[in-house]
């Protein structure tokens, strides 16, 4: 499990962030004192740092600069100072990403995942399995007993969401919302069409009716 360290002087916000991250399969911790931040960072040796720019007694940018001198750990700047200039400055000091407050939690999670993916240490290893079905989002294919079928981006999104929620009912709203977060602005009808296509493709692989419709509730993988 990836360990993320939160450097944020508003402790309530830091606590909530910790909860959010823990709910999403990261282990998280936050700093409570803001003296010798860099030393604390080095000591805790996290897999990623979420760093606020406005800190008591220190400037996030200079903390970043010092930290970069001793470590390559990915750093995401999380801040309410969100002009392009701040972003440029942070990036030039070696931040891996930059998110302005107030941020959308799911977008923050996507950014974190993207950074891990980019540096190649993502342990939410792309490949997902269910029964004999192997799902590879990065290649856009599912494979069953050596037989591969290609999926479109929407279909892949739907299926991977269902895979991840194995055994739980997924509502249509949830699916649409998830697809929107990954830049696919589908509407109700498109979702129906896409679900049917996924079903047909799964049938090709010999899995009839694996996606069950729960009337008035959504879909479930069975």
């Amino acid at each position, binding site marked *: 499990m990836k360990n993320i360290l939160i450097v944020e002087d508003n402790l309530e916000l830091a606590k909530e962030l910790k909860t959010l991250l823990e709910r999403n399969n990261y282990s998280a911790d936050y700093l409570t004192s803001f003296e010798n931040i860099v030393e604390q960072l080095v000591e805790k040796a996290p897999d990623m740092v979420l760093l606020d720019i406005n800190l008591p007694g220190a400037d996030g940018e200079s903390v970043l600069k010092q930290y970069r001198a001793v470590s390559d750990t990915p750093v995401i700047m999380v801040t309410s100072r969100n002009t*392009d*200039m701040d972003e440029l400055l942070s990036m030039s000091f070696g931040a891996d990403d930059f998110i302005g407050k107030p941020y959308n939690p799911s977008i923050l999670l996507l950014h974190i995942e993207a950074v891990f993916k980019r540096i190649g240490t993502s342990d939410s290893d792309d490949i997902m399995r269910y029964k004999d079905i192997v799902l590879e989002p990065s290649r856009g294919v599912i494979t069953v007993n050596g037989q591969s079928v290609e999926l479109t981006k929407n279909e892949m999104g739907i299926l991977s969401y269902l895979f991840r929620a194995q055994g739980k009912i997924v509502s249509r709203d949830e699916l649409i919302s998830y697809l*929107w977060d990954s*830049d696919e*602005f589908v*509407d*109700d009808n498109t979702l129906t069409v896409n679900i049917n296509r996924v079903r047909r493709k799964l049938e090709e692989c010999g899995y009839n009716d694996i996606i069950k419709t729960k009337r008035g509730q959504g879909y479930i993988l069975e």
Partner: protein
Amino acid sequence: MKLTTYLWNKKISIAGTFFLVICIYMMGFVFKADLQYQHALVFLILLCGFVSLCFDYFRRKLFYDEMLGILSQLEEKYLIVEMIDKPGFPDGDIILDILYESNKAMKERINSLELSVTEFKEYLEMWIHEVKVPLSSLDLMNYNESTDLKGQKKQIDKLKQYVEQILFYARADAPEKDYLMKRCNLNKLVNNVVKEQKDLILGNKISIVKDELDIDVISDSKWLEFIIGQIVNNSIKYIIVKMREDKTVKGSISFGVNKTDEMVILSIKDNGIGINERDLQRVFDKSFTGENGRRTTASTGMGLYICKKLCDKLGHIIEVRSNEGEFTEIKISFGKDKYYEFR
């Protein structure tokens, strides 16, 4: 004005006069002129010099003493030019003209600053009232221990938007350092905006139609994202009004790009209630809400005004086209930067 200062100032003319006197005596000596005649000549010259000096001195003294006197009595010193008559000697006239012009320029500058300060105050006051609405809803929800998370999210989104808006309002007036022109991908910006307002769009079953938007323009990404966000938010607002009046309507917002030789034009079109012809030219005016503003409660008339201001700063052209009851289309034109294109 002190006499000594004045005389010191006139030292060259005085020295000149004495030089002239010496010359007369020397020439008189050389040409063996009558001494009486020389004395008379010198006396005349000195008399003329003295009289003109006195006249000049008292004219100036009168003028400047009056000016200083008025100045010391005046509460608002800058009004001095209004109280003084032209002295009638050239340098005084010139100084007075200069004072008058510079005063005028300063007054204009102060006026425009005053205007923007009152504008800001008015906006701030209105903004505070606006912001209190979602705050009190949340307060109530909290009090009632509401579990309606979606409802709370809606209010929080509203708060977020108001905060964004006032930030950009302040920025629109701030010095240029706040923005950074660089390549921005329109597709990415539009995606961000749509995602940001996801709940509102999905909650009202509005569909998003996107043409191929994968084009870079030169702009400040944060500012442009805000501008597009405001436009989309307006679209949503007026689609909701239309849907409330006619249940069969299905709301949609479409994004498109038009490329010409010199321009990239982003168009954002909705099938909301549209804007009537009378109001159309004034939608970018400050605090203008028009007829549509009266049909929805959440209209402050600031969104498009700020957009226009930001666009002006960034050098983009923002235009609106509409048919009442059918559609509203906002177009933002970006100049193509030859330098960037070339690379």
